[in-house]
């Protein structure tokens, strides 16, 4: 029986939603293809996640325990995943396409002489061949890409699939990991996080995103207030991170974060395709822009044409009223 292995990433004490999405779709493919689904967790305390993982149906869970995994370095992660791949011998390894994944997937592919299809919008199996659709040319179009290599690595953009539960019993296998920390040739000195940076934007369920229409500090305050009322994470278009109004970690777009919240507010954002590529998987999109012809309105579930400086304060007040009830 052939094995599909999903790398289930954790951060800040939780399993990443995007990883559960990939695990769920991997399970669907395993079931329809008659394959085995296995999962791997790397964490300082991997046992804490086993119960949650069992709800998503893998038949085996590999755990690798080390405090090193919290230090954002690619070397320990690559080595640990390689050890599990050596043991599990999958034909397909699936990942959520996060910055951490992007940091290791190339090296892993070379290590195993595997095919890699990164950052896909969708993927399926045809026998043991993998077929995927992935955005290319600055996200303007989709490329259909396939592999029938003996091992393929696939990473998936967040929000491409839903996380769905299918509880099962799973065998838990702990894999020993002895990493020579003294041999590290790259070390983490510090993590800089500004306000709002601590949240991984790509995991947020509600996002308020600011664009060029937010001209100044007054506009930033409107965004802060709305996000606060909603309990939302804040994101930004490239233009306003470049201008310094918002931290670069908040950039949403093809080269920034890919987000897939239930509710996305695009405020003063024109809707350039590179930005849309970062949020098109959002379930409900609300756009507020004074230009009725802004491309964002082609993507918005609900579009409000008007002055955001008038609309947003009223919206914030309305949200506060709703939440108070």
């Amino acid at each position, binding site marked *: 029986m052939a094995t599909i292995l999903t790398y289930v990433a954790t951060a800040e004490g939780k399993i990443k939603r995007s990883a559960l999405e990939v695990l769920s779709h991997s399970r669907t493919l395993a079931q329809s293809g008659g394959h085995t689904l296995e999962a791997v967790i790397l964490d300082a305390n991997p046992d804490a996640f086993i119960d949650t993982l069992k709800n998503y149906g893998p038949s085996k869970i590999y755990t690798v325990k080390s405090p090193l995994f919290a230090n954002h370095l690619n070397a320990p992660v690559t080595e640990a995943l390689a050890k599990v791949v050596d043991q599990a011998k999958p034909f397909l390894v699936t990942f959520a396409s996060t910055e951490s994944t992007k940091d290791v997937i190339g*090296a892993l592919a070379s290590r195993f002489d595997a095919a890699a299809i990164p950052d896909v919008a969708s993927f399926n199996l045809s026998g043991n061949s993998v077929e995927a659709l992935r955005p290319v040319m600055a996200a303007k179009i989709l490329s259909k890409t396939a592999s029938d290599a003996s091992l393929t690595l696939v990473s998936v953009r967040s929000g491409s699939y839903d996380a769905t539960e299918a509880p099962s019993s799973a065998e838990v296998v702990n894999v020993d990991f002895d990493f020579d920390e003294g041999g590290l040739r790259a070390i983490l000195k510090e993590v800089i996080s500004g306000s709002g940076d601590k949240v991984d934007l790509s995991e947020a369920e509600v996002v308020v995103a600011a664009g060029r229409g937010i001209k100044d500090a007054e506009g930033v305050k409107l965004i802060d207030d709305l996000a606060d009322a909603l309990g939302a994470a804040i994101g930004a278009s490239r233009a306003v991170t470049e201008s310094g109004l918002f931290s*670069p970690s908040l950039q949403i777009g093809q080269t920034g974060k890919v987000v897939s919240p239930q509710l996305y507010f695009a405020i003063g954002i024109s809707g350039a395709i590179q930005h849309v590529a970062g949020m098109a998987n959002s379930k409900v999109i609300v756009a507020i822009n004074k230009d009725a012809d802004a491309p964002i309105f082609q993507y918005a579930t609900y579009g409000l044409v008007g002055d955001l400086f008038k609309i947003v304060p009223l919206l914030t007040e309305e949200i506060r009223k709703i939440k108070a009830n």
Partner: protein
Amino acid sequence: MKFSVCIKQVPDVSAPISIKDGTLSQDSDRMVLDAYSASAVEEALVLTEAHGGEVEVVLVGPEKAKETIRKALAMGAASGVHIHVEDISGFDSAAFAEVLAAWHKKSSYDVILTGKQSQDTDAGLTGGMLAWKLELPYVANAVGLKFEEGQFTVKRQGDSGQEMIRVQHPCLITCSNDMNDPRIPNLKGIMASKKKPVQTITLEDLGLSVEELTGKVTKTTKQGFQEVPGREPGKKFEGDAAELVATLSNLLQNEAKVL
């Protein structure tokens, strides 16, 4: 200090694209220096201007791509290496990494810079693959780079926040286009570029062949292109701000049920 910057020539992604029967067509066949590669060149120039050293650019591609090497030289790079492969259409990231690894095994460098991805494929694999093949420590998605006390410190954009990573050299760093604003060559730079050396290397020189690279090394196949699916058309409203908010509030609660 010698920087080897891997650059790519790509189609101009700002030119209109259309898809006919699964194949790509663009009105313009204008090819440009990939934006992420450009940031890598710019960063190398900034660092060598501050700390001394030289920048060599390396490009794998057809004869036509020489103009992109010249652009990097006009920006200020000291020399270029053109690994001439006339038809790269059958190459995936692994093939490029294989070629670049073979070149770098024969050359000398302190740091290899690449873009974190390239605008044509957005794959983002080649840097990590190349670092693995050369057994180099690497840092990906750099938004800042400093050289202090003989060491490189990379500011990396992570999933939450920015990570400061100190890396020993020789090393490889992949660069975000958020790192800097690549300079536009001026006339002086363009004139000077004509005299700068560009070495032409063949795959045979590197002990490789197109057949091996497209047949064995490349493991993915491209099966055509599709339009990005649009979303269901939504509702658009104009009018008084208070009315707009009331309408939206009602829809979010009762129709979309997200509030």
